[in-house]
């Protein structure tokens, strides 16, 4: 487990989780997180993120496989692990009628080496809300209180289950800053998120979960690099796909059409885009809705989800792919 280079703080081997009704939420996953690393678990709703994190937090025992956190089984050796971990569940878990300060006092009394309440309040920006009852906090404030409690004991390992869900853009940015600062100090962080830009911005490494399995893992760059770039546009009136130059000569590795919209995939974005635009220029047509982008984590994620769904359901998801893509929000990196 321990190597000279890398101390594995979280070590997960062939882990499965099966719920009472027989539903297998986690279907054999293996990964590890080194000390000081920020590891993100990505996935759609129902992919098994929370089911996995709960196992790491020691809230349940896996149906099969082995989990080690700081060298201990987090479920059976709770007492050895808990003083060194901080947890933020997906949903709060605070009595509504306690004030923010009372909630922190309760947790401080149950946490080894707790930070002073004022420090925690300051870290999560709730200083002015300390006398407010929890039920009167906004959703975002509750998330920040939860984060504050997770940080209370200066944990070596931090589990954050969708830490920014329900936060506005500014609150999310603040949380990112805080998580980055903690990582700078050497805290190991395992977080789940369905915001891909969050994983891209924060994670050293990540794994994409799909239907309880790891569909892809690596650094954000590695996961992204495995995906082709995309060009999409509307075919001008009176033109057909066959009027384009031979796609293989443009370096296109795959294409899809949906109505008049054409989507091309390529490993050589610059060459393909140049050739396409030169063709349009010569033909004197405007390519409406032209969208040229190198692969982002979001693209990768959608492709992987799509591929896995197609694999498990045995049906083509081509049209859906184009529609999903046009809803995408990732920034354009390449323009011709």
């Amino acid at each position, binding site marked *: 487990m321990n190597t000279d280079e890398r101390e594995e703080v979280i070590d997960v081997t062939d882990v499965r989780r099966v719920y009472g009704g027989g539903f297998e939420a986690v279907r054999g996953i293996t990964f590890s997180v080194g000390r000081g690393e920020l590891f993100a678990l990505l996935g759609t709703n129902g992919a098994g993120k929370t089911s996995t994190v709960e196992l790491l937090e020691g809230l349940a025992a896996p149906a099969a496989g082995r989990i080690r956190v700081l060298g201990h089984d987090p479920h059976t050796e709770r007492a050895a692990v808990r*003083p060194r971990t901080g*947890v933020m569940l997906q949903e709060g878990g605070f009595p509504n009628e306690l004030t923010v300060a009372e909630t922190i006092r309760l947790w401080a009394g*149950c946490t080894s080496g707790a930070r002073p309440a004022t420090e925690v309040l300051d*870290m999560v*920006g709730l200083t002015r809300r300390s006398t407010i009852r929890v039920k009167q906090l906004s959703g975002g404030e509750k998330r920040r209180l939860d984060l504050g409690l997770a940080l209370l004991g*200066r944990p070596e390992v931090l589990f954050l289950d969708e830490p920014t869900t329900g936060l506005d853009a500014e609150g999310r*940015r*603040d949380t990112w800053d805080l998580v980055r600062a903690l990582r700078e100090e050497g805290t190991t962080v395992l977080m789940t998120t369905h915001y891909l830009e969050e994983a891209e911005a924060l994670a050293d490494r990540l794994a994409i979960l799909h239907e309880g399995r790891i569909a892809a893992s690596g650094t954000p760059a590695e996961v992204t690099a495995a995906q082709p770039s995309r060009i999409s546009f509307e075919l001008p009136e009176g033109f057909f796909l066959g009027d384009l130059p031979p796609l293989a000569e443009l370096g296109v590795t795959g294409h899809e059409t949906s109505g008049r919209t054409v989507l091309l995939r390529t490993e050589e974005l610059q060459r393909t885009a140049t050739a396409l635009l030169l063709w349009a220029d010569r033909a004197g047509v405007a390519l409406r809705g032209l969208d040229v982008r190198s692969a982002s984590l979001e693209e990768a994620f959608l492709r992987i989800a799509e591929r896995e769904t197609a694999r498990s359901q045995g049906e083509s998801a081509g049209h859906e792919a184009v529609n999903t893509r046009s809803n995408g929000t990732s920034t354009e990196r390449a323009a011709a």
Partner: protein
Amino acid sequence: MSTHTSMGTGAAAAGRTRGSSGGDSGHDGRGSRGGRSGGRLGGGGTTSPGRLRALARAELTLLIRTKSVIVTAVLVPLALPFSIRPALDEVDLKAQGLTIGPVLLTSAIGFSFLFAVYTSLVTVFAARREELVLKRLRTGELKDAEILAGTALPALCTGLAQSVLVAVGCTVLLDLPAPPAPHLAVLGLLTGLVLSTALAALTASLSRTVESAQVTALPLVFVSMLGSGMTVPLEVLPEKVSAVCELLPLSPAIRLVRGGWTGELSGYETLESVAVAGFWIVLALWAVRRWFRWDPRR
């Protein structure tokens, strides 16, 4: 917004404190981090009593803030026994060798078990589960038993305080002599409180919501009121019925408490009561361990 700036400085503060706490790597970092604790618990590590106290304190705050719980927990057990007094006057207690004082006192203590402890804890356990408080607490350093005990502590103290209060009240108002066998009364009180708590945890686990928990709690309340000697002394019931009733979960506790004041419980009867109570406590604690629900029922 102020939020932004304060969180920003917070992140910086995190860096400073961590840096000044003497290293952040490895297991040996713990000692120094512990040394920087808020000081309340000293030494950095938490202790079981410390954790229990923190949780019980929060629960006490919540108890005081929930008016409906206060009413059932405090007023009902104090008012009910006196409402059954007219009924008791109808029964020929003397024929059974009973006097009104110990009968009324045991009723009051029995109602304390049921309302100050049992029903209010059914609500509390169900509410904390549905609010995800129990799940959240389980991610921390508290052991499962500490979570249950700490949550139950304020209600247990209420029950205990009421019992002492009615004992003093009955002694003064009904000229009740000092109990000839106080150890039996104490034993009865403790078994009753422990069992009421464990049964409350189980009942909460059978309830889907806080509202339905109040209904789920009713059967045990009725069975205990009628069959455990709280409203009607078991002595006045037909022998076969009372023999069965003595096996109900809260019957031995009531019998021991009464025995403490009458001094008329034989060694064999005492042993029998302790055995029945012990059986129920072991069974209930085992069942809680096995079936208590920490996550909401969805």
